[in-house]
């Protein structure tokens, strides 16, 4: 069975990019009831536009309503779910029993259970199935072997995380942020206290060295495990990161799209082909998390920092005139006349271009594109399309 590749989207542009670059479905947050507050900026009209775009491609949109609900949060949920159902949202992602029970009243809205419930057994998957949930997002702490065992004991759809940030704690059970910063981790306010540096003492004796005790984990990266996950029969493979950039989404989604398709067509390339593709976007250090083998210190993130992307994302194609062959480009990072850039497209053309004859929106020559988000024009012989991306080759 071909699993669904499920991608995050923090806004409508990223939703479109995720779907164009290979996601079968996206998950998004509305302005209410959703974790990841910085990313939860889809108004109802934007959700409707996203659904229309996705459905036109034969793809799906899921909306998160996965905060742990307090009494203050209960108002307005029914109306919200009605709106989501009417606009054709395919599923709501819930963690609170209240959301599950209210969503059941909306039969065209499937219910997916959020990883916030930390489900790690088939018994619990089936429990939620009886409660009306059609899909369970498993805890990030389950291993590949456990996934296989769970799958063999349930008909409920299973979704597993394959890439991105990992909570160090079991999801939904952490209140470090609540205690240390008054920000509610389970209602979208997580301050990521688990990513801070700490000193470790034992009976008053300092054991750490310059506050180098950390509890954060490396990000998840599962390229080499995808074939096993496909065999396991899981329904959906999920990428984390509703706050990630357009370029990150395009790059990571496209890499996993390729490895899934290549696995199923028995044309897998060497692993480093896919891993190098992912490395073109910004990433923290990665590991395979709990999926394979015993955890050790190697899965932990003791030295913070981003691994620099191997290629800088410099621009996005906004328009192309096929007659004049002039492309309109949205600047995202500095590039200049004479630079070699890679044209990164949903169909993986990956052609090289030389930047030349760059102009601003008024037709003035531009030698260095160093104004953030500047609109530029440039002749490009190859046909390009909206949301093709330009990455500077080092």
């Amino acid at each position, binding site marked *: 069975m071909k699993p669904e590749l499920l991608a995050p989207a923090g806004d409508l542009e990223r939703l479109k990019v995720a779907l164009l670059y290979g996601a079968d479905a996206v998950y998004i947050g509305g302005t209410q009831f959703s974790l990841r507050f910085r990313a939860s900026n889809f108004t109802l009209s934007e959700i409707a536009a996203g659904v229309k775009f996705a459905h036109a491609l034969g793809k799906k949109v899921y909306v998160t309503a996965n905060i742990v609900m307090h009494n203050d949060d209960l108002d307005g949920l029914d109306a919200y779910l009605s709106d989501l159902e009417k606009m054709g949202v395919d599923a709501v992602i819930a963690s609170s*029993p209240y959301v599950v029970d209210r969503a059941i009243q909306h039969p065209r809205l499937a219910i997916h259970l959020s990883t916030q419930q930390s489900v790690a057994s088939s018994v*619990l998957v089936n429990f939620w199935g009886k409660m009306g949930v059609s899909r369970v997002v498993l805890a990030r702490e*389950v291993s590949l072997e456990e996934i296989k065992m769970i799958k063999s004991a349930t008909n409920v759809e299973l979704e597993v995380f394959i890439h991105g940030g990992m909570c160090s704690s*079991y999801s939904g059970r952490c209140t470090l942020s609540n*205690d240390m910063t008054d920000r509610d981790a389970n*209602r979208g306010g997580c301050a990521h206290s688990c990513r801070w540096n700490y000193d470790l003492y034992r009976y008053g004796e300092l054991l750490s060295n310059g506050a180098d005790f950390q509890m954060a984990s490396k990000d998840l990266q599962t390229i080499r495990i995808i074939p096993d996950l496909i065999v396991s029969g899981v329904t959906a493979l999920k990428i984390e990161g509703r706050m990630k950039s357009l370029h990150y989404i395009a790059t990571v989604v496209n890499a996993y799209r390729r490895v899934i398709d290549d696995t199923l067509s028995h044309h897998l390339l060497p692993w480093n082909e896919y891993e190098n593709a992912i490395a073109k976007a910004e990433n923290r250090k990665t590991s395979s998390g709990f999926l394979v083998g015993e955890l050790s210190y190697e899965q932990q993130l003791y030295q913070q920092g981003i691994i620099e992307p191997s290629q800088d994302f410099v621009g996005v194609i906004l328009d192309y005139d096929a007659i004049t062959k002039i492309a309109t480009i949205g600047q995202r990072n500095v590039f200049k006349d004479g630079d070699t850039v890679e044209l990164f497209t949903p169909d993986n053309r990956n052609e090289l271009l030389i930047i030349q004859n760059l102009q601003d929106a008024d037709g003035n020559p531009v030698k260095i594109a160093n104004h953030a988000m500047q609109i530029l024009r440039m002749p490009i012989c190859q046909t390009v399309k909206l949301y093709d991306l330009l990455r500077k080759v080092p």
Partner: protein
Amino acid sequence: MRIVVTLHSLLEMKQMSALGADVFLVNSDCLSTKTMKCFSKMDIATIIEEAHQINKLVYVNLNTIIHEPDIPILEAFLLFLAATNIDGIVCFDLSVVALAEQYGLNDKIIYQPGTMNTNSYDPWFFRKLKIKGITLSKDITLAELIAIGENYQGMEISLVGHGYSFLFYSKRLLLKSYFEYRGKPVPNLSNCDGFRLIENQRPEEMYPIYEDGFGTHIFRSRKLQSFNEVKVMRPYLSDFFVDRMFIEDEEYYASIGAYKDETNELLFLNRYGNSYDSGFYYQKNKERDHI
């Protein structure tokens, strides 16, 4: 309202009972974590028998996340419990709820996830499952607790209202990993209650950190006490849990008596009060809209 205390030894039962304990909470040697003392099935059977002889109740604490390989262990344990007169099964994972009915134990289950039980609807949801009760979330305010209590009085509601509240439960072995990362020998972590974390912006706060085979736990830097709050919440609470982790025996015994008698409460606060605070009762966390 019953006072639930953690039992470390059969020998404590009479003393704790005299202090005002109504229920003894015991940790199992198979599916209990963040505990300094566990009991075998045989021990638990004995404890139940002896507690009932002095008209006290016994709850068993199954406070791990249940993974698929744990299911046979859980089934065997529930089978054992079904043959006893256990009075309550405190569980952290709904897998226990899901399995308990098969063993005729669903009416013994108290669902105590630490977080999650945060609104007035949750008791209604769990009443449908015909379980004994739920423990309200540790991170909600007193006003929220009262609102939940006032709104629903049809199933048992409980509170963990005393001791070091846990903030974090990871499957990762964070202490062991850290020592390995540093290339240092891993010390004996078993039952070690002496590890603390300090974050440099909060130098006065020492967060206890504890590791066992199920993972790593981090706790609030200050102990929670609820003497005033429990007077308000008493009409709504069936069980009030007095947590024991990291607390010396003498202080722990004193805390039990303090919830039964106002004179004892005053003595307790005079002696130990500086290391306690009111937790989240008056600390309304900011959700996303207010950040």
